[in-house]
């Protein structure tokens, strides 16, 4: 793999993403909503006396759960399939570039673009909190940002797998939206239903939760923010009692890492081995 080619393709992707009006709308919406959440957090702070980054980060978790998976999945899902459909991928690959360079360059380019928009949202809020003098929970805020960035990598990788395996962009978008709904809504309902029907214990429910990257992010982010065990529900209490606070967090963080590494490897191998052009 030649770094020069990876860098060239990555730069092209960033440039295209920055020109993409949907991407701009997403970034602007995410940043504005983050600032609005911050504003409301401060309004409540004046009443409740709670201050700093912690509350802002807690508010941002819900925003991240809604926006980041959707944008990452859809962006990843159209990355290859769209180029395959309109013929630009075929044309690019007819030049002296390896498939591995194309995959890596595109992935990194899109990842940088998504990370920029996430950092912009978190960054603007962070700057406002900093200016207002709230320093409480700065490390938690940074850790929430880091978890959000990891969530983006994970779902972008899953989107890339969908894209590599789809011939049509419309199909890959459909699958990615379904996955978004699945991860955010159906998965929770599925776990609850399975638990009731199969009378599952707490341990299998915790394991099932680890099979969903958005669930892993949610538990890790809440655990990061809250000093109390109860906010995580029975599963969180089980995890904390079994592994301890740090142990649970490392376990969840490792699960997030696995959720980033495994889909990247699968997508990479699928693209480099399956020649669908």
């Amino acid at each position, binding site marked *: 793999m030649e770094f020069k080619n990876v860098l060239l393709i990555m730069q092209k992707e960033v440039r295209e993403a920055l020109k993409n009006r949907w991407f701009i709308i997403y970034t602007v919406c995410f940043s504005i909503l983050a600032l609005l959440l911050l504003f409301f957090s401060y309004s409540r702070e004046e009443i409740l006396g709670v201050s700093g980054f912690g509350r802002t980060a807690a508010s941002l978790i819900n925003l991240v759960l809604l926006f980041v998976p959707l944008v990452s999945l859809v962006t990843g899902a159209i990355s290859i399939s769209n180029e395959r459909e309109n013929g630009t991928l075929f044309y690019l690959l*007819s*030049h002296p570039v390896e498939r591995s360079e194309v995959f890596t360059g595109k992935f990194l380019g899109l990842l940088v673009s998504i990370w920029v928009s996430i950092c912009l949202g978190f960054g603007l809020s962070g700057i406002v909190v900093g200016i207002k003098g709230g320093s409480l929970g700065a490390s938690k805020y940074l850790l929430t940002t880091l978890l959000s960035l990891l969530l983006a990598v994970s779902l972008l990788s899953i989107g890339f797998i969908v894209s590599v395996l789809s011939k049509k962009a419309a199909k890959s978008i459909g699958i990615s939206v379904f996955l978004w709904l699945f991860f955010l809504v159906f998965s929770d309902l599925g776990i609850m239903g399975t638990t009731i029907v199969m009378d599952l214990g707490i341990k299998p429910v915790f394991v099932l939760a680890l099979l969903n990257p958005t669930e892993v992010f949610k538990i890790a982010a809440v655990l990061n923010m809250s000093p109390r065990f109860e906010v995580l529900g029975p599963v969180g209490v089980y995890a904390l009692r079994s592994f301890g606070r740090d142990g649970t967090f490392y376990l969840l963080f490792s699960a997030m890492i696995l959720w980033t590494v495994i889909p990247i490897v699968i997508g990479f191998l699928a693209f480099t081995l399956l020649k669908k052009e």
Partner: protein
Amino acid sequence: MITVREVTKRFKDIKAVDCVSFNVKKGEAVALLGANGAGKSTLIKCILGLLSFEGEITLNGLNVEKSSKEAKSLIGYVPQEPVFYDMRALDILEFFGAIRGVDMGRIEEIVNLVGLREHILKQSSALSGGMKQRLSFAIALISNPPILVLDEPTSNLDAYARAEFLKLIRELKLQGKTVLFSSHRLDEVEFLADRVVVMKSGKVVMESKPNVLAETLGLKVRMYIKVPTPWIETATDILKREGFGAVTLNENTLLLEVTSREKTIPLKKLLFAEIPVEDLSIEEPSMERIMQEVQGDGI
């Protein structure tokens, strides 16, 4: 330079390319001829290393599957319908130039060579079909590769641009470039190709020099012979007697079909019978007729 050896490409149960073998020597221009679905584009994709296949393709000794990158650096490729990223033509040239490791000086040179100067700052989406084709040709030539692979390269060009384009390709061929191209136009094939590889249903069914392709296929040329009206019946009888299927078109014109080698015989027969020939025109087999023959069961 290009060696295609027993290449087979299957899509599930369908063989798009079926045990195809041929060579293209250095400096030679070879045309791939065949109807839609004959397997030309699939074969070109295999040569570009974009599809996995059975058999072996080497470019200058480099296996396109094992040494894909090195092999592709030897090729300049012009697709049938160029599609580009939505960037300015200059940015696209710089992007592919950077991938092929060329400097800005070469980009300047190539822009002038293909006549793209006035359009270089336009977005690719704003370029006409002809300009897109010029851009893809500029990209193909940017690193001065020894092999050109052209997939119906003139399909989007007007008559003037096509003539200029063909002239340029021929000049490049004369400079020693190896050219493999697919085309539906006999005039292009005759103008550029040293050899024609005819494909049908994924197989190579014939290899021929372009000027004898029609004859190899058994196609006849049409001769229109004009004689004075009083001689028309006599002329028709003489030619029929000699075995030519002459048909009277009107009061003074005869139509007959002969092989390319027989063209002078009807004239000799008429002159021998002292029948004055007022005019003569010869119609070579059209590309449509050749393609019909290629598609038909004849070969």
